[in-house]
């Protein structure tokens, strides 16, 4: 018996948003009488934290703390249209819509504050803590609380804004395939180390070092959640997952979490995540969509590491112990080989 170690690398990119565009999202923002802000959307939070991120984006844009923003989403009676949460589009598309709506609302807010302070709105700024002041003269200020009260009960202004974000649809050229699939791309590179049992074909993923470039980490802890969870799913795809283990046979498909295989808490690789930020020109505060891309590079990195360890190429997913063992028994000739000609 021998446990043989190997290391592999893979690098990928990933488009943000629906392929070829044409996927709009809208947002509405308004203030309450006491200067809290409501974001109305129909975007869906799948667990990635859409509600929290939209609150932070709105707060940043208006100039208030995040806990003064409420996100009301995914009720078609109250939220304007969103194409949906898929294709790494949520943060990018809805975030841009929220920025547009929040900017418009901020402008009204500053105009009301300007009337109260008897200055030009263009001379005003927010301190991020709930106040509006004259730029360069912080003592000349009014709270957003008072500004909202004034807007509602004195000046008859609606502190509100509408936001819409749409990347126009691109139509591929039938002959050449010329098209604009996406406006920005996230990037990743993963180095994986594995240990392969050459008598059973079992693989332990020892370490994965993931480098992700995601435009901007809008909330680093939430980015970390996505990336760590995605890295686990990548490993899972590489070695475990399929609904039909003997595809194209339809027999023996998993019906439960015992039969549908995914790494358990005792199978975790030592995982490192490093994030780079190259802001996207059209991203909300530069953000791109990291949610899908983060689960991709581990798969080929592990496949390459297995080759490095035991010299067999498994070119069919998932890379099960059986596929490795069959290849080992065939002296590494299964699937393999560099067919140079």
């Amino acid at each position, binding site marked *: 018996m021998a446990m043989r170690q190997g290391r592999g690398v*893979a690098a990928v990119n990933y488009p943000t948003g629906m392929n070829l565009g044409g996927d709009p999202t809208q947002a509405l923002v308004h203030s309450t009488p006491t200067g809290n802000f409501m974001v109305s959307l129909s975007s869906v939070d799948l667990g990635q934290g859409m509600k929290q991120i939209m609150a932070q984006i709105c707060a940043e844009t208006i100039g208030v703390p995040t806990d003064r923003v409420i996100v009301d989403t995914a009720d078609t009676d109250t939220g304007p249209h969103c194409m949906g949460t898929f294709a790494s589009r949520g943060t990018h598309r809805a975030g841009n819509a929220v920025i547009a709506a929040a900017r418009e609302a901020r402008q009204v807010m500053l105009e009301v504050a300007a009337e109260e302070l008897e200055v030009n709105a263009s001379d005003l700024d927010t301190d991020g803590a709930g106040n509006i002041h004259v730029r360069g003269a912080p003592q000349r200020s009014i709270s957003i609380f008072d500004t909202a009260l004034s807007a509602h009960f004195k000046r008859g202004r609606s502190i509100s804004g509408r936001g819409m974000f749409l990347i126009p649809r691109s139509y591929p050229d039938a002959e050449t395939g010329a098209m604009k699939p996406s406006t920005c791309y996230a990037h990743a590179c993963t180095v994986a180390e594995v240990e392969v049992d050459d008598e059973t074909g079992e693989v332990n993923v020892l370490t994965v070092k993931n480098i992700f470039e995601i435009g901007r980490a809008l909330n680093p802890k939430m980015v970390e959640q996505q990336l760590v969870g995605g890295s686990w799913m990548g490993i899972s795809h590489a070695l475990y997952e399929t609904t039909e283990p003997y595809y194209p046979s339809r027999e023996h498909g998993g019906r439960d979490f015992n039969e549908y295989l995914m790494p358990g808490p005792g199978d975790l690789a030592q995982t490192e995540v490093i994030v780079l930020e190259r802001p996207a020109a059209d991203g909300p505060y530069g953000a791109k969509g990291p949610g899908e891309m983060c689960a991709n590079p581990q798969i080929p990195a592990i496949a390459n590491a297995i080759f490095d360890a035991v010299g067999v190429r498994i070119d069919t997913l998932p890379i099960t112990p059986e596929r490795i063992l069959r290849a080992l028994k065939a002296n590494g000739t299964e699937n393999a080989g560099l067919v140079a000609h």
Partner: protein
Amino acid sequence: MELRKEYFADERKDDLKEIGQPRLRSDALGHVTGTTTFFADRNLPGLLHLKMVRSPHHHARIRAIDLSEAGRHPGVVRILTADDVPHNVYTILTLIQVGPEDETVLATDKVRWKGEAIVAILADSERAAHEAAERVKVDYEVLPAVLSIDEALAPGAPIVNEYHGQNYYRYDSGESRKVRFGDVEAGFAGADHILEQTYGSGPIEHAPTETTGCIVVPEGSGRYTCYTNTQAMFFTLDNTSIILQMDGAKLHMVGGTVGGGFGGKVDVIVEPIAILGAKLTGRPVSFIYSREEEMQISSPRAAEKLVIKDGVMRDGRIVARYVKAYIDAGAYSRHSPYGAQKSAAHFPGPYTVPNVWVDSHCVYTNRTPSSAMRGFGVTIGDFALEVQMDKLARLVGMDPLEFRFVNAYRDGDMKAHRQPTEGAALIECMQEAARASNWPVSEKYLQMSSARREG
């Protein structure tokens, strides 16, 4: 997690107050106290349970359906068949003009995959629905089935889906979405080595802990409130409106708190039939996939087959890349024509290759329809591309990481789909990977930049 701020520092202002802050999630308090309301977390008096009777065959003609015994079973309130569905033949991407309509909400004369929905039982209890489902008698004439991409494309193969007329999706570009860039044959002719390899994958399930489902409540106003875990509220509303030929103003979708999606909840499958049930019975209806249905009935990530042929020079430059991709859509389109198209746009990966030829096919088989999943159209392609890159590096005797530096795309490089590269960062990711993993890489690669080419 480590944020490496030194990369691209000049392209970024780090003076924001809320953005970039690790604020606690506003929804997490509800999660840890068990008070977050998921769609199923509501009790409604008079709730009916919907249970689907499904095909046991991969491909069969339905000669007759006998509902007499099931209809009489205690607790059964109504049984829905295709005749009850106003617009029974639909396709989900109709809203963005991707046709043809090719899928039945409830089967009429044929079933095209094992698990296809035929009739829906609405009963007072899950038990009664299960008992009645056992009493539905369907007379099938079993037909030859096509279960793999190769079988589907073989001459004389049985037709899976008559709405297409052939076992692949027909784009305006023909049997595949094409990308043609440079002269791939000339590239191969001038290459030092050529490597052609075939890659594959089986279907993969999203496996969210919360299964797909919805609860529909008929309101006194004549409207229908549908509590759903769809990933796309209006997509669901609008498709339901089409399928039920019901004014969208009558529909009210409430959702947005989903127990995991990963792409598995963008098909509009449960809502139309549950709303129809609520309409025809006047009672609230719950249609929630069992775990087994989630695993085997809900759309998986497609199985794929990819053939990649590369021409490479001794110095490591890839001079030609030819890709034939085949996406196993299963019996119906759902989102697969879109996915195959996204796949075509993705090749040749994050590398600058002067000569590229891509044909991406969406193929129909008598299998569970596949659809979107995290990394749709890209995940399996990236697996194939990056294993191929490793093989190419070894073929020319280069370090696999250095080989990628040689070919990495940079700002301004023209991509195969004829968009100039912008905002590239592959090189910097690889530089950081080399550092973090102590992977020895020649200094010249560590000096590279995505923003500009040397010299």
